């Protein structure tokens, strides 16, 4: 994965003024020689590298720089670059309930990429979800979201994609099961789920809210996970952002519309910004597929844009509040066993009282991730552990150990039951069967 970032970085370097880098490098070497006569060559070159890094300005045209930023907001890299593959050369297998799709090459190579596309053709694809030859694009590409992108932003992304190195890598055909390999079926899908058109600002809301809505509903394509997908691979407007189990990956995308099930209505703007941009916050950390979004996309967005998204997300939930009332009752022996496992394995970081030590160790008490109706995420985190993403704002993340190898289904079910019902939490007990099922969940 970091390959992508390294490639982005080295790619960015290429666009910077080579002469400026060299001049700064020489100055850096000279300076460090003067400061310390005994400095080793390595020391000098290390100093020169960091000086050059700090000093080199991005000399690419403004529209390309902006396009790169928007491409990150759209997280294009997550699908259009394969692990250890060339930047934006595609080829990433995407497993869906309907078969495997392979992301296409979007480098400016004329034969395999988008080298022969005009700016208009690119915009037309973004707005209509159709390829230049009229073929309908499979909605693994967030066409129902990217249609909201403005002409100006589409042109910037186009300019950026034209500026990256072309890669002569052939596209791999999709491997879809019948009948999903019949592209004409997409006509039906589009009738049900595709509404063409740019984002329409809501004049009753603030500029900031509208900016957030544009990013969340458009390029951010948050609804692709945070709205339950149905048997047709679509999501209905009434379920918009209500959360759901992500097919194949088997992580549960929390609701963004109900504070009872993950909504951010009672979060501070700062905590939402921290969660999205840094990957951790005083309320919890991102993990699973959301860690990928922060890693590839959100960490690169400006403070203003992330704050706008936070303002929009905070305003999404209806005002019905968090879950309330007494905790669910559990079997006494299960709760006691869970308490023992917790004391033995979890309390060292998360504390006897479940209050944690944020942002290193998220609180488990009063944590929506733990209390959600679906127990999928708490079970998976106990089984698989995980590191929050290493981001610009959280360079050294604290990892949660996996416990799947040392806890039995009974142990894991007991401890998850315990954290979901202790300390006034409002989750429901889980069964060893649920734990066992999630042991088979894919890990990438």
């Amino acid at each position: 994965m970091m390959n992508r970032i390294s490639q982005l970085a080295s790619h960015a370097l290429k666009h910077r003024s080579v002469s400026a880098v060299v001049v700064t490098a020489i100055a850096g070497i000279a300076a460090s020689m003067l400061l310390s006569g005994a400095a080793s060559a390595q020391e000098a070159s290390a100093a020169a590298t960091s000086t050059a890094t700090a000093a080199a300005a991005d000399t690419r045209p403004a529209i390309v720089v902006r396009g790169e930023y928007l491409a990150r907001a759209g997280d294009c890299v997550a699908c259009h670059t394969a692990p250890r593959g060339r930047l934006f050369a595609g080829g990433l297998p995407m497993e869906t309930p309907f078969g495997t799709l392979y992301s296409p090459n979007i480098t400016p190579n004329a034969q395999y990429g988008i080298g022969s596309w005009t700016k208009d053709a690119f915009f037309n694809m973004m707005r209509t979800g159709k390829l230049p030859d009229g073929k309908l694009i499979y909605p693994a590409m967030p066409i129902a979201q990217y249609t909201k992108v403005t002409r100006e932003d589409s042109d910037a992304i186009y300019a950026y994609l034209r500026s990256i190195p072309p890669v002569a890598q052939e596209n791999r055909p999709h491997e879809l099961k019948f009948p999903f390999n019949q592209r004409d079926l997409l006509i039906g899908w589009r009738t049900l789920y595709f509404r063409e058109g740019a984002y329409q600002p809501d004049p009753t809301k603030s500029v900031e809210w509208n900016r957030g809505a544009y990013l969340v509903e458009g390029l951010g394509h948050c609804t692709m996970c945070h709205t339950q997908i149905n048997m047709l691979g679509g999501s209905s407007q009434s379920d918009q952002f209500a959360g759901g189990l992500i097919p194949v990956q088997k992580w549960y995308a929390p609701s963004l519309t109900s504070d009872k099930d993950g909504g951010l209505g009672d979060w501070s703007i700062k905590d939402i910004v921290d969660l999205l941009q840094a990957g951790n916050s005083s309320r919890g950390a991102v993990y699973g597929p959301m860690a990928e979004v922060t890693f590839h996309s959100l960490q690169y967005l400006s403070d203003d844009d992330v704050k706008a998204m936070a303002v929009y997300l905070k305003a999404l939930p209806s005002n019905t509040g968090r879950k309330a009332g007494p905790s669910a009752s559990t079997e006494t022996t299960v709760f006691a066993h869970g308490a023992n496992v917790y004391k033995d394995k979890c309390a060292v970081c998360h504390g006897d009282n479940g209050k944690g030590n944020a942002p290193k160790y998220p609180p488990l008490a009063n944590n929506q991730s733990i209390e959600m109706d679906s127990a999928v995420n708490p079970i998976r985190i106990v089984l698989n552990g995980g590191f929050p993403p290493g981001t610009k704002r959280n360079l050294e993340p604290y990892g949660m150990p996996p416990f799947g190898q040392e806890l039995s289904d009974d142990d894991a079910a007991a401890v998850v039951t315990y954290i979901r019902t202790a300390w006034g939490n409002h989750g429901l007990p889980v069964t060893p069967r649920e734990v066992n099922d999630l042991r088979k969940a894919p890990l990438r």
Partner: protein
Amino acid sequence: MHRRTIGASLLLLLSVASTGAIAQPAQPAQAGTTLSPMDERMRACTSCHGVQGQGRNNDYFPRIAGKPADYLFNQLSAFRDGGRTYPPMGYLLAFLPDEDLHRIAQYFAGFQPPYPNPDSAPVPPAVLDYGKQLVMNGDPARKVPACAACHGAKLTGTEPGIPGLLGLHASYIAGQMGTWRSGTRHALAPDCMHTIATRLSERDIYAVSNWLSRQPRPDDPRPVPPGDVKLPLACGSEPQ
């Protein structure tokens, strides 16, 4: 760009380390002592590999302590990017940048915890003799180099990228040789271990892994400096 900066600072670190100017790595955390931030951060690793990376008594959580830092970095990035496929490792590392993988590699390279007891299941002496012969001398007729030619005369590894071969179970060594041979484990190209593994028979691997797993802890378990050893074949993880 990140890579270049890190490469330069690593070089610097190594050059300082080889002149002995750098302090010995921090002693591992003991019960009752204060944990460093790194000790705490690495709980996701040490819960399986042990608090000093000494490994567990099974083949899934091998010893990682004291291996050359570049070797450990290469393994971490391979798990993350697909060069090695073990889903629980790939999942844990998926969103950690190179900078952090270097920190993790340095951390575990700095430990030298006690070695486990050598394997002791009965294996015929003739097999062990044959294993020793291959490890120390190779088989020139089949173009199989001696393990010791790259992994060091005492088999404790060679800086910066070649790991030691002691303190591992026979089943783990044999398992890894199998993954190299089948191509499910890749090193940086040119992948010399794949080349070598394809020249070995089941019998060779059995003998080599059993002899290696029966060797006592060396007096000085640290990897040796690269010196001017000429590798018998080109290896991407140890560029010369």
